[in-house]
């Protein structure tokens, strides 16, 4: 059942539209990520759900209750900020219990809930410390506990891991996800980090210039991007301009080199210009595996990236990137070698504008 509804929400700041016609239904217990570059409107949308911005038009409801114009302190929506926003004058326990104290809960209940929350974030022994005595990761965990202590209807996370170093980011994102799933809380997670969005979310909303580009599961977003922006923003991608040769059979040509695609091209006709996309890891060298599309190429460059080797090849006049898993026994080609690459029909995506 839909728990949080964002219906036709738009927001303008003067003449600039930060968000346009945003529509999204979020199920109870779902974690949805808003993914996009800076200025795409993801944080503005989140702030409208939190009540810090008022939509220019549209309606936001939580569990059927219209909260569009409700003040933020009456929404029961928990929020975790990028800069932690812990109150420096209060201890960890004071921070976690702040909302409960404001809600005038009895002291015994506050203490019990604070203890529960600290246990949840594995920081039971840190209750008496002040924020400046904690590391960034610990501070963000306290901020999470503080937001959850009031048992909010929705949890909003605004780039909560951006200020942390890479290792802590990875461990904390699984911790946040597991806590969210354990409590079954509905959550919106704003990030510009695709890895974060793909690894944590039930669904991802890709945003660009105030509009939704695509909504889908991480699997759908990564494997079947429907727009050029999504395809380019999520993961590394080869894109090239092509021409439809045979729409019924899904045949396209890039610089005269033919590819077969499994994408639906019913609405295309012979000679139509299209943009195609192929993930680097979907290519293989023919020697390793033989598939539908076999094209001649020249090795242009080889980059060793640790777990993968990124090889740049030229097909006709177009350059493509081919990713292969690193293997100490891999027989890598040399720059300038003539070779053949292949990919399945499903790997060749025809993008919408």
């Amino acid at each position: 059942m839909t728990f949080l509804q964002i219906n036709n929400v738009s927001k303008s700041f003067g003449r600039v539209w930060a968000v346009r016609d945003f529509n999204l239904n979020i199920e109870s217990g779902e974690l949805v990520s808003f993914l996009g570059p800076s200025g795409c409107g993801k944080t503005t949308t989140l702030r409208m759900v939190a009540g810090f911005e008022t939509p220019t038009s549209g309606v936001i409801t939580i569990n059927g209750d219209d909260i569009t114009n409700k003040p933020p302190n009456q929404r029961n929506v928990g929020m975790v900020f990028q800069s932690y926003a812990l109150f420096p004058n209060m201890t960890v326990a004071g921070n976690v219990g702040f909302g409960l104290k404001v809600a005038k809960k009895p002291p015994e209940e506050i203490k019990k809930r604070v203890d529960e929350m600290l246990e949840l974030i594995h920081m039971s022994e840190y209750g008496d410390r002040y924020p400046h005595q904690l590391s960034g990761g610990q501070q963000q965990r306290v901020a999470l506990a503080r937001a959850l202590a009031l048992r909010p209807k929705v949890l909003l996370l605004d780039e909560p891991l951006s200020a942390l170093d890479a290792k802590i980011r990875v461990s904390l994102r699984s911790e946040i996800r597991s806590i969210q799933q354990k409590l079954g809380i509905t959550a919106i997670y704003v990030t510009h980090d695709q890895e974060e969005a793909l690894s944590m979310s039930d669904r991802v909303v890709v945003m660009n210039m105030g509009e939704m580009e695509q909504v889908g599961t991480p699997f759908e977003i990564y494997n079947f991007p429907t727009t050029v922006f999504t395809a380019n923003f999520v993961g590394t991608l080869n894109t090239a301009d092509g021409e439809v040769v045979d729409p019924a059979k899904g045949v396209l040509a890039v610089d005269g080199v033919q590819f077969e695609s499994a994408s639906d091209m019913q609405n295309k006709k012979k000679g139509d210009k299209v943009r195609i996309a192929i993930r680097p890891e979907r290519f293989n060298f023919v020697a390793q595996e033989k598939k539908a599309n076999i094209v001649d190429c020249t090795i242009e460059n080889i980059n060793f990236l640790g777990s993968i080797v990124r090889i740049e090849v030229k097909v006709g006049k177009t350059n493509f990137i081919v990713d292969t898993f690193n293997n100490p026994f891999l027989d890598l080609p040399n720059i300038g070698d003539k070779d053949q690459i292949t990919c399945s029909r499903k790997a060749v995506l025809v993008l919408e504008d």
Partner: protein
Amino acid sequence: MKIKNIWAWIILMIGLIYFFLPLLATFEFSLKMIKDRYTFEAYRVAFTDPQFYQNFGYSFFWALLTIVFSLLLVVPTAYWVHWRMRKMRPWVEFVTLMPFVVPAVVLVFGMSRLYGGGLKVFGTPILVLTGTPILLIAGYVVLSLPYMFRAVDTGLRAIDVRTLTESALSLGAGWRVIITQVIFPNLRTAILSGVFLTFAIVMGEFTFASLLYWPAFGPYMEEIGAMRAYTPQALAVVSFLLTWGSIGLMQWIGRGSVQEVAAVH
């Protein structure tokens, strides 16, 4: 490098001599009330004068009122500027600097003219404030504005006002709770700095009190100076000590917060 150091020391010494020598001379002079002996007689005379306590008390009272009204004006204004109207900050800062541009004597004449019956509606004077201490306190508030605003502004810049306010709002807090439990405690050091500076300014202020005919420590010192030789020097030294005491307290309180900030980074 060494020559540079020597020059730095020489300049420092000149500065110290320029500053402390007159003060030492004043202090030395204040001890010479009894011929051929150094005594604290001038201080005894000053401290046994009931007028001293009365005027000191008045100034103390004016300082307290000024501090209260300055805080009520400056803290919410500076907070609102940081929270909602960041673009207005340079303008507000400009306004707070006006007391440095407009001399106190001009300000006091302007105020007493406007609020002494100069403001009329249909020929009837309105807002006649002369005869009440409102003008005096208002003048002191204006006079202390650059110091109080700057102190509070610095404190607000050191904390993330917007995010702290928003996080408190998302936790259900109202404005009263946000101001009293989140913002004020985190501005304590900054506010105390502003308070001590305001206190020091009001305790030694002469122009406003004198021209608006209100008893205060400044006019009292001037009056004593016109009549006696040694006591005013003793009072000048006391006045300096008071100012230094305030600044010292400010530094001492501020030290803790600096250490805390250092610990964070």
